[in-house]
Each structure stands twice: as C-alpha cells, then as structure tokens.
C-alpha cells in the first residue's frame, strides 16, 4: 500500500496512526515535498482485515510477540493457559540489562488477563532494556505505555 501525492508525484510518508478504540483506525501520510497530509480512515471491518494478517499499517513500534494474533484476537481465551508465575526468560546475549519490577508494577500486571500477561510483561521489559531503564515502576510503565501506544495494557 502506497500513497502518492499526485501534484508532486511523490510517495507520501507514513506519519501517524491513531486507534480511537471503536474498531476504526486513522493512518496519516504526509507528502515530503508539499507537506500535504491525508488520513486513511478504515471502518472496523477494514481494520480487522488488516490486523487479521498480524500486521500494522505504518509498521510496528513493538516487535511482533509470540502468538500475538491468537492472544489478542481470540474470544474466551483461557485465563489458566499461560502460567502467571513464569518470568519471561531474558536473553542475556541480546539484553544484558536486568530489569527489576517493583511490587507496584507487578500489581498493575494483575489487571492484565493472564492470557496476555506474559506477552505484555515482555513488551515492557524489552522497552526498558532498550531505553536503559533497570527498574520498572508504575511511572515508567505510564511512560512506556504512551510511547508504545499500549492503551489498556
């Protein structure tokens, strides 16, 4: 999918994605020559059609997580499938930084269904490691959530 600014004959660049939470999506593309912006608006069915491929328009802020599509798309996923006591194993070769979770931060994860809890914890931990943060607390979680666009997580 490409957006072409006809006046400039220039391919527009992806600029922003907004997910209002009603199943719709807005993806903004900008012409690098004339700065004109267009927003592609999709209805819930069109949004679902794209997300059912396991892809995100404009690319990902967070790498695809293991079985992300199944975990986020399934209705009635079992709360008991993923062992909540399991710590996601950290790959020391890739992420040398050890991230400690405060009890308050761990408490916040209690609000996340266990079906996706391990995946969400991994996303926060990866973000912390990439940003040189060695302690995960509620404030850091808020910052990460904003940067990663993880509303509701």
């Amino acid at each position, binding site marked *: 999918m490409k957006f*072409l600014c006809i006046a400039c004959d220039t391919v527009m660049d992806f600029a922003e994605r907004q997910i209002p939470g009603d199943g719709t999506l807005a993806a903004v593309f900008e012409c690098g020559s004339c700065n004109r912006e267009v927003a592609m608006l999709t209805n819930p069915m069109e949004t679902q059609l794209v997300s059912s491929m*396991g892809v995100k328009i404009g690319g990902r802020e967070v790498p695809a997580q*293991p*079985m992300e599509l*199944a975990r986020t798309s399934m*209705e009635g*996923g079992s709360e008991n*499938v993923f*062992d909540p006591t399991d710590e996601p194993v950290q790959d020391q070769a890739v992420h040398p930084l050890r991230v400690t979770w405060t009890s308050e931060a761990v408490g916040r994860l209690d609000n996340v269904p266990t079906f996706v809890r391990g995946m969400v914890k991994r996303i926060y931990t990866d973000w912390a490691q990439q940003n040189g943060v060695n302690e995960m607390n509620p404030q850091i979680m808020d910052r990460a959530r904003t940067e990663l666009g993880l509303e509701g997580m």
Partner: protein
Amino acid sequence: MRKIRTYQEVSHTTESELLEQVVEQQERLADRLSQVKRLIAIASGKGGVGKSAITANLAVSLAKKGFKIGATDADLNGPSLGRMLNVSGARLRDSADGVEPAMSPDGVSVMSMELLQNEADAPLKWREPSLGGFIWQSSLETGVLREFLGDVVWGDLDALLIDVPPGTDKIKRLLELLPSLDLMLLVTTPSETTRFVVAKSIRLAQEAMIENIGLVENMESHVCPSCGHASRLFGTGQDLDEDSEETLSLWGRIPFDPRLGAYTDQGKSLISTEPDSATAAALEDLVERVSKYIKGG
C-alpha cells in the same frame, strides 16, 4: 486522462510497511522450522477418515522409538490432538524465544487450539467486529496457524506432524505457509465418496510439487475379533493401487478397529495397549515406514 504512476512504477519502499511485515513473518516461520528435520502433514480433504487418530498414534509411537516429535493441530475449530496426546489442561510458558509447547506423557511436544480455550466444548470465536467475518476470518486463522508453527519453541525436532482439517482449501493454506513441506500423508478410506474428495487433495499436492505424497487407507477392512475373518466395510471392492497415480505410493492400510478410536480418545496408543491386534500391526508398519523416511531412507 492524466497518467498516475502504478504501484510497481513507484520505486519506493511501501510506507505502510505491510509487505515488509509479511516477509518478516515468513522469515520467522522459516527460521523456526529450519530446526525441524521433517515437516509431515497428515491430511485428507475429507472429514471423519481418522486423520487425527493416525496423527496421534504416529506421534506417540515415533516418540517411543526415540525420535524427537512435535505435533500440532492445524484444525483450529475442531482441535483434538490435545485430548488424544494427553495434554488437555496443560499450561504454556512464555520464553524469550516464543511459547513453549505442552509436553505429552510420551514426550511429544504439542500445540493445539484446545490449550488456549477457556472451555473445551466452546466453539472457537474471534473478537469483534462480527460484520464481514467471512472476509477476514480465513486470513486470521491462517495467521494463527502460522503462529502455531512459527512462534512455538519446537526446538530441533526429528519431525513435526501437522494434523490438517478437512477441506482442500485447508491443505492449500498450509502449503502456502509451508512450501517446503517434506511429506504429505493423505488418509483415505475405501468409500467411493471419500476417494472422490481425496483425489482432489492428491491433485492439489501434486500441483504443489510436494516431493513425497503417501496414501494411507484407513478402515480398509474389519477383522472379526472372534474368528479373525477380514471383511470390507465399504462397497467399492476396488484395490486402492488400481486408482492411484504412479507418483503416489501406498504407505499404509489400516483395518478398522473400534478400539483405535476408543483408546485414542482416552489419550492412549493402540500399539501400546493392543499390540497384537491387526490394526496395531498395520499402524506399526506405517510407523516403520515413517521412521525410515525421517532417518532419510
């Protein structure tokens, strides 16, 4: 009319990055399965021919012979391998590399949609929107199957067995995900209707140029437990070899035995529980043939 450049004429990376993400998914899948020596699909095209029971019995018997075996349900809507391989209710673990599969008591690594569902008897449902589900559902289910194959930490298996649901479209979807499938075992029965449907699957597999296609004729006869007399269950009276293409080979002929289904439903292998039965012997022959294939024979 003004000329607008076409997609192909625009030499620019796709700013939506959709294509790049799809390519990345395929690379991730290929990377994961590069550790698996043999990818084996057990399919038919027709339902009710015993694919899952054969898959489960093959998996257990191969594992008991010392092979490192994985098994997955490509059937998301009617999963049965969880029960048949005794991993119902098992908990999964997240690891840095993916999701660890459940381990059966016989040492088979298992992934099945059943493991993810809250209620075993609940139909599989996807989140909203329900409108236009027929448009996106197929894509979503193929994506979830891709995750079963590519996001599960299968490790260095000797063989990964994939139980393919009925419908030639499901075979086609699997082949799109796994163009490097090593072996497809097509399960048929002597029923004319079944053969009619399986013929379509054979053609599909041949068109996909799968190197090894084997036929397994299930329920080929019924052996009387009292006198040992074998009689046909279906009316064709025609040997499968006469119908088969030269490029196909018959990998197994398995007599009907009600205990096969009964034991398999309980998570038990017929070969282990009734080793002297004709059906167990036929299954053992199939296991031997697959063993040789895995070893490279």
